[in-house]
């Protein structure tokens, strides 16, 4: 029963990792950009949530209503102001610029909030649970997983059913021809980053409610998101959810064996899948 419990906790944790991964996957899909600062942006969102809850005295979920648009706006400005200049055939500029950004965000957070771990207070929600078949499931992990499913379904809808998604796919296919269709790729990229950081805002606040956080943990969150993307298969949003679930389950089961094995177990599963299925478990079937 303990093992089953660990497995289910891991699956629910996977929802959070899928949210880490969704933003990463989205911007890679649209503009082939891998954002090294992605994890630090998640942590930034957590701190923005923390400040909002403290200053306005509101619940973290209410704070989300402010943090989401703020992060989206930041994403648009960041993309148009800096990241668009790095896009081209050369791999180095986007990688090194986002790496620099990662160091800047991390140290700015250290400067403002210090290295002390912080946590957001979600009140009674944090301890509430339901009993299902003898297992006690936390409401918060269940909600996190539910939110992840809804967000991924929403992204899937935007990508394949709306004019914005059509523009994303067209620009991703062929930037020049997309320009001929009246699409300004710089604006489209800005919107993609805005959407990615809106998802990141949700991920950051859910992270901040679930565990304590400090400015240095961004790199680890980037890695979890990245592992979920690769396990699931590049360019497949539902695969990303599956990747997150596999990673989450590996971590909680690893921790069950030995607490020191929690993260290592996740990495080992990732490397194992990379060894046997380098394109991930659910690679996108190209048309």
């Amino acid at each position: 029963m303990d093992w089953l419990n660990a497995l289910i906790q891991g699956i629910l944790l996977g929802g959070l990792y899928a949210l880490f991964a969704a933003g990463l996957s989205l911007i890679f899909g649209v503009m082939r950009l891998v954002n090294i600062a992605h994890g630090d942006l998640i942590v930034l969102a957590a701190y923005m949530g923390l400040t909002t809850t403290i200053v306005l005295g509101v619940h973290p979920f209410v704070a989300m209503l402010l943090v989401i648009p703020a992060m989206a706006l930041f994403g648009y400005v960041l993309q148009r102001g800096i990241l668009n200049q790095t896009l081209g055939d050369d791999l180095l500029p986007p990688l090194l610029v986002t790496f620099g950004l990662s160091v800047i965000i991390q140290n700015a957070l250290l400067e403002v909030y210090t290295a002390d771990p912080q946590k957001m207070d979600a009140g009674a929600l944090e301890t509430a649970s339901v009993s299902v078949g003898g297992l006690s499931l936390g409401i918060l992990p269940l909600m996190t997983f539910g939110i992840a499913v809804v967000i991924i379904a929403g992204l899937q809808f935007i990508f394949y059913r709306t004019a914005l998604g059509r523009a994303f796919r067209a620009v991703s296919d062929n930037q020049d021809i997309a320009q001929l269709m009246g699409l300004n790729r710089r604006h489209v990229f800005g919107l993609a980053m805005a959407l990615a950081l809106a998802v990141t805002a949700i991920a950051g606040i859910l992270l901040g409610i679930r565990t304590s956080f400090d400015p240095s943990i961004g790199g680890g969150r980037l890695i979890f998101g990245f592992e979920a993307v690769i396990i699931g298969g590049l360019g497949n949003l539902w695969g990303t959810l599956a990747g997150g679930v596999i990673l989450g389950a590996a971590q909680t089961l690893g921790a069950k064996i030995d607490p020191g094995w929690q993260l290592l177990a996740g990495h080992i599963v990732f490397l194992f899948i990379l060894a046997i299925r380098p394109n991930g478990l659910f690679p996108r079937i190209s048309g």
Partner: protein
Amino acid sequence: MPEPILNIDRLDAYYGDFQALYGVEMTVQEGEVLAIIGSNGAGKSTLLRSISGLMDNDADQIRYRSEPIGRLRADQIAKKGIALVPEGRQLFPSLSVEENLVIGGQVGRKGPWSLDKVFKLFPVLEERRSVASTSLSGGQQQMVAISRALMSNPDLILFDEISLGLAPVIIKSIYDALPGIVGEGMSAVIVEQDITKALSVSSRVYCLQEGRVSLTGLSDAVSREEISRAYFGVEQ
């Protein structure tokens, strides 16, 4: 003579250090079909890329309805009413046939062309509207590429090598559709390897050779000799 819809004035174009066009002068009149011929590498595609904004030029080198557009981005030029049917068709592989057409219409210009009208022009596209654009035959893909450009209701449409790599019977059906397209009052520039075809559909012709205009004239008045001299640059 009325004011031309497009006026190209001493246009130079570069790929890095390589100069592809040298002082090209050209006008397109309202409602006419203009043909551009020339051998591979003569600069035909570069000229169309410059007009449609995919290459950077000086503002005054290209004027559209008297407005300098040489510096504008491709998306801005598309909104002003110039559409390009690119060489090699270049459909969006992630988009279905219908999505490829709809995205062409997203430029937001009003005019006679709509999804229904395009489907009337090429009925086969309606049957295959929801399949992936990559699953179409070459000729059908070319129909989508032309229709996608038409969906933006342009005033000037540029065709780059639309018969390249297609079977003769397909080429014929596409060219048969052409009068119906330009009959709507649109101006057109056609880049074509097949000289006979180019002359038969156009009113005027320009020949490019190594980035320079080597011949201009009325399509039904230029002689074979003049063309081969302008085309190859040697007396024959």
